[in-house]
């Protein structure tokens, strides 16, 4: 379609530019306002420029321990990321080989995406409450001492972790489907012909070729978990993740402190996104360079 640019190009280009402005404009506004002077409010104008609100944030927001929540969210995000990459990768391999029930597992993954988050969250919350009741009943029936102090099984690395995986795994699996569809089995056959074992083929052939895609899966795994709110809401114990605390703060905090917190959260996301995209680009460049330089390892 290499024709001269018509009016449609400029019209659609204009829509695209406005959309990007709409997408980023508000976020950039609060990034700017988080550096509001000490006497400034939630809206423009800026009353001077300062890091006052970051200092206040550092000292803590009211009764909420925001830094503990941030640490929890970071740790959970890393665990979800590792599990998403690993489980989706191996499941992708299994789908590639084909197995009975593959269609059913695929349907499960798609359902996990399209069942409303509040329903998933409520279900997991109920499941763990019923488990707790069962444990308490067991303790009462048997008198086993180690069960008597049972609080709840619900928590960051049990129910919340599971809730996050129901959201990140489908994305990971779909990405790997897309990549495996374009993956030429000739590479693996060549490796086997040269005498590589199954695990060796995986480690030296499949994983390096898939590396950029796996970085993409990791990006989805971490960021979707780090910002997850709806599925976590009913499936978390007493100690909240950062997005849950943030949601609570929207109604109580009326100073630019909340913007400062927004800047910090966005900075974490931006750092992760930047790292992932940079890493993908580097991996692709390195592969292209090596392809040019011949097949040196």
């Amino acid at each position: 379609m290499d024709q001269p640019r018509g009016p449609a190009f400029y019209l659609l280009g204009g829509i695209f530019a406005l959309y990007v402005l709409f997408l980023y404009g508000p976020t950039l506004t609060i990034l700017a306002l988080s550096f509001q002077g000490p006497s400034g409010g939630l809206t423009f104008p800026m009353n001077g420029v300062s890091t006052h609100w970051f200092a206040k944030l550092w000292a803590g927001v009211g009764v909420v321990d925001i830094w503990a929540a941030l640490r929890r969210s970071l740790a959970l995000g890393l665990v979800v990321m590792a599990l998403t990459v690993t489980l989706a990768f191996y499941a992708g391999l299994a789908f590639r080989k084909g197995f009975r029930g593959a269609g059913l597992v695929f349907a499960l993954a798609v359902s996990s995406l399209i069942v409303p988050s509040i329903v998933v969250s409520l279900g997991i919350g109920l499941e763990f409450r019923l488990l707790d009741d069962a444990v308490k009943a067991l303790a009462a029936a048997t008198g086993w001492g180690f069960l008597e102090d049972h609080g709840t099984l619900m928590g960051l690395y049990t129910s919340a972790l599971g809730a996050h995986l129901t959201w990140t795994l489908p994305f990971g699996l779909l990405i790997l489907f897309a990549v495996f569809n374009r993956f030429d089995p000739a590479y693996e056959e060549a490796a086997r012909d040269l005498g590589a074992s199954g695990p060796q083929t995986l480690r030296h052939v499949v994983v390096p070729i898939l590396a950029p895609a796996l970085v993409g899966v990791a990006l989805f795994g971490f960021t979707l978990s780090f910002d997850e709110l709806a599925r976590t809401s009913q499936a978390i114990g007493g100690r909240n993740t950062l997005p849950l605390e943030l949601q609570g703060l929207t109604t109580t905090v009326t100073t630019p402190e909340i913007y400062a917190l927004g800047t910090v959260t966005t900075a974490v996301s931006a750092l992760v996104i930047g790292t992932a995209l940079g890493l993908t680009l580097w991996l692709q460049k390195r592969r292209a360079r090596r392809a040019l330089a011949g097949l040196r390892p």
Partner: protein
Amino acid sequence: MTDLALPAAAPATVAATPVATPPWRRRALAYLQAAPLTLVFLIFLVVPLALTGIVSLWEYNEYEIIPALTLQNYADLFDGCLSADLCTTVRTYLSTVKFVALTLAITLPLGFAVAYFLAFHVRSGTVRMGLFLLCTIPFWTSNVIRMISWIPLLGRNGLVNDTLRGLGLIRAPIEGLLYSDFAVVLAFVHLDTVFMIVPIFNSLARIDRRLIEAARDGGASSAQILRNVVLPLAKPGIAIGAIFVVTLVMGDFVTVGVMGGQQIASVGKVIQVQMAYLQFPAAAANAMVLLAAVLLMILGLTRMIDLRREL
């Protein structure tokens, strides 16, 4: 990475490669490799949904839930719905469906225009990828922050009101910009248009350009090409995007809560409140009805396409 969210073809196309390993070992290995993921979905999706269905049929009082079968929770849910004035449940659903319709009406043409621009008007592959990423990056940042970021723009003394007053278009600030239906729909469009762009772009990128050339050679106008060639081929992407928007908006309680100033009702919010008051069976019954409603809407959308072939 044009296919970040949606792969190109069904896994069934993957042919078995000739290998030295005996077939039974290969098959056993495949089960082993798929098991952890399957287990996660069983424990955290299938069992929870089944339990929700069961608990929705249980009795409860202020202190505990009682495992005795009853349909009372569903009866409560639809209590008074047969009378002339609408019951709370129906009104809540109507309000939520209204948000779905408005969000679809905006995200669909907008997402299509953006995807169309990327797929057909951007000529360099690198630029296309860069612009595509530009559209998806916000998806990886916090939704709550992106909602809060409308406050300085839409607030009483926000940028919009100030600008309009500066231009002399209004005297007093418009009150209903923030914490209103308008703000809720705006936030939905802001957060969910990406779910339209990615699948539609994926569909458009796969259209064989020769089809369009053939149509043009055949004398079709641009409008005719759009209507008779591009749109039919983009239908799967549109349907997938619409499915995402429907489930995201139908089950939402966060956006409606934050952008509606906790004043607007939604189905998700009702469930959340009932959970907070420990009325688990009532919340479960509500969740079952919501799930049924969403599945019905999706079923309607999937009739447009063969979803399995698209994934």
